[in-house]
């Protein structure tokens, strides 16, 4: 696996803190290993939408990697709820190609970006960098209604 320059939080230079949401343990581990190569720190994991919301409230991570299809509550709904309570939440949807419409829906509800399964590290890296970029337009809101 190639080496990535660590992505840090721009405000304090600390490692980026991740919450990984996926119903497959394997997928969670895979993603966790990947973000660690970017210098990230996985502070929590969730296997469904409901616990994703409570984990977000408890941990306040910098980034959520969110699967679309999950038991109990789907990723879109969880993303929507999180963004409603925390407009600055950075949620990256993770899904396979067949769920393009769900991705569009999630983006409309406030998700920041998406990656396609199987996740390629270099793609995820670019996405993380983009999402963490602090260019004064972090708070969105324009998107949600569009």
């Amino acid at each position, binding site marked *: 696996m190639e080496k990535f320059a660590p992505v840090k939080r721009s405000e304090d230079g600390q490692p980026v803190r991740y919450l990984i949401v996926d119903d497959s343990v394997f997928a969670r581990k895979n993603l966790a290993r990947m973000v660690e190569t970017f210098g990230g720190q996985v502070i929590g994991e969730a296997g469904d939408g409901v616990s994703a919301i409570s984990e977000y409230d408890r941990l306040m991570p910098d980034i959520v990697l969110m699967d679309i299809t999950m038991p109990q509550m789907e990723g879109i709904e969880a993303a929507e709820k999180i963004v409603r309570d925390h407009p600055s939440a950075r949620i990256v949807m993770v899904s396979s190609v067949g769920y*393009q419409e769900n*991705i569009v829906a999630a983006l*409309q509800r406030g998700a920041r970006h998406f*990656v396609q399964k199987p996740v390629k590290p270099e793609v995820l890296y670019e*996405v993380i960098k983009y999402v963490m970029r602090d260019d004064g337009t972090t708070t969105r809101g*324009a998107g949600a209604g569009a």
Partner: protein
Amino acid sequence: MTELRQLFFESAGELVQKLNDEAMQLEKSPGDAETARSLRRTVHTLKGDSAACGFRELSELCHEFEDVLTLENTAAAASVPEIALRAADVFAALLEAYRKGTKLPSIQSLRADIARLAHPASSGAVNAKKKKKKAAEKTSRWSEYEQLAITQAVAKGKHVHHVVVQIDPQCAMPIAGRQMIQLALAGLGEVLALYPAEGSLDPMKRVEAALVSEKPAEQIRAKCSIPTIALNVRVTPLRAEAPSHPLPPPASAADSEVKDEAASPVAAEVTAGISANDAASTGEPAAAPAVPSGPDNVLRVDAERIDSVLNLVGELILAKSMLQQTLLEFGQRFPKDVLRGKFSDVMAFQGRVLNDLQHSVMKIRMVPVDQLFRRFPRIVRDVGLQCGKEVELMVRGGQTDLDKSILDAIAEPLTHMVRNAVGHGIETAEERVRAGKRPQGTLRLGAYHQGNQVVIEVSDDGRGIDPEKVRQRALSQGLLKAEQAARLTETETLDLILQPGFSTAEEITELSGRGVGLDVVQSVMGRLKGTVQIETARGRGTTFRLRLPLTLAIIRALMFRVEQRLYALPLNAVAEIARTFEEDIHQVEHYDVLQLRNDVLPLLRLGSKPPRGPETARRKVFVLVINSGDRKFGVIVDGLEGEGELVIKALDDQSITTDLVSGASILGDGRVVLILNMIALMDRFTRGRADASGPRMAGLLSSVVPVASSIESSEMRARGTAGGQA
């Protein structure tokens, strides 16, 4: 897809018309940079549209033409207007061929003209340039609404950016990718236009947008450069020239265009035609009529869809009268029931809503007459040139609304009348000068509303029509006999020119004659339930006045009975109703007359004549006084049934064996009403008199009765028992 195609043909037709207008404008004021620019924009738009629809020949031709028009000196080149007119013809022919799928017309001669315009010596450079431009260009396609928003924003001096984002070919989810770009754009400012539109499932890997934003282009670029999605981002200011559709004009031009559109209200006299004043340069309403798509939010809908809504409204009105009939029966059976009052309240309310609905739907079908009038400057110019006459065309009331189907139907007759007026009505310059008139003739086209009708006038200041000549001609052509001729009034004589086979012109010109007479006017007007009126003054000119109903679908009519059958006439044709007895109807020279106040009113008997006798003498009859133009006559009917709004059912050709009936309608109780054709009635009346066969017209309507019966039986079948008795 077919919808898009239709939209293309519609807007392309408008563009060709615009090209015509602009070419003529340029002809009048050669060297006018604004007109030249506008003409080029028109060609550019047509190019873009036709390319988007895959009509290669047209788009290439437009492209070549547009290229040539970029040259600084085009405005000065004398041949540009002429070539533009030729181009308009060729474009129109190409469009026609595309539409019908027929063989494309030859474009070589236009191509040569264009090439000659570019480089009097060689034409090779055109192609080289074309290739260069093609590579740089990407046509985009905003909707009309979006385009309008852009034009307005640019005109207001806003910073409008044209953003094109190429999506990474590696991106497997382009729709989601486009969504992200759209969100990024929305975060930057106001998105005026977006292609593909939001929610589009097109897997297109390219986004194009018009964005209003105060942010610098570099920041827009950065914000849209989303990793893993955007491959490259291009941000260019949308100002004067941009690769969009149609080109938003430069701010100043946009201002003046908006002004022009606003400055042509209903009453404004718009001058257009050969040697008209250069209206544009003096700041008066421009000669080139405004594009029909006004500044509002315009929606294009297939006319058929509106028709089907209108049909349903018709059915509703029918249902209403059925309900009314039922209520009536209910009232008779339970006169004291409280429900009766409730019923009629609800029905009154329903009736009001229905009325509003009907009018709203009918309004949708209305289009400004200008859509038709816009053709005429070119026609007047061409016919004028061909006959060597100078004619100025004045158009008034172009904003008057008329039902689209009526407008389509009168296009041909009106064209014919205009050609006729220029070709025959207006004299040559020398002849005019000899008569003490201005050498230049004037043709006026006007439209206005009058009551429930639209009046369209074509009037010239030419030599007028000599009734005596018409009479002679009709005699020599065998259209009438000498004894009939002597009896005709002046109006009746003039009407002869509307008869099939009549032609006053000494020579048949290529443009005006065309082997068709003015009878096409008469027959179309008959079909539309309209009337034609001719007014003429020798040496001063002629006016043709067409009166048309606002719509064909529903009429207010007076219903009456003749021999137990129901008939109707349009209410506005009936001037008054007189009540009389058979014994008061007198015979004068073989036809029936009635003394009505101080007038003697000639009568037309629809039924058969009752046998003489004391019983008959005291029989009550009604006389409907029909006023049409300057002709007045009475129609004898047995009884009146009342007035009402009739929803006209189209009759197929097989069921109509007579021209006396123009349509049929069904009442709430299932009875069929036949709507009589005024023109045909009048025609019978005139002919009847001329033939002196008045008294033998008995049973005029006997040929009509089978029509009613067949409609009744087919309606009964269609509606089951709902129609009731009958």
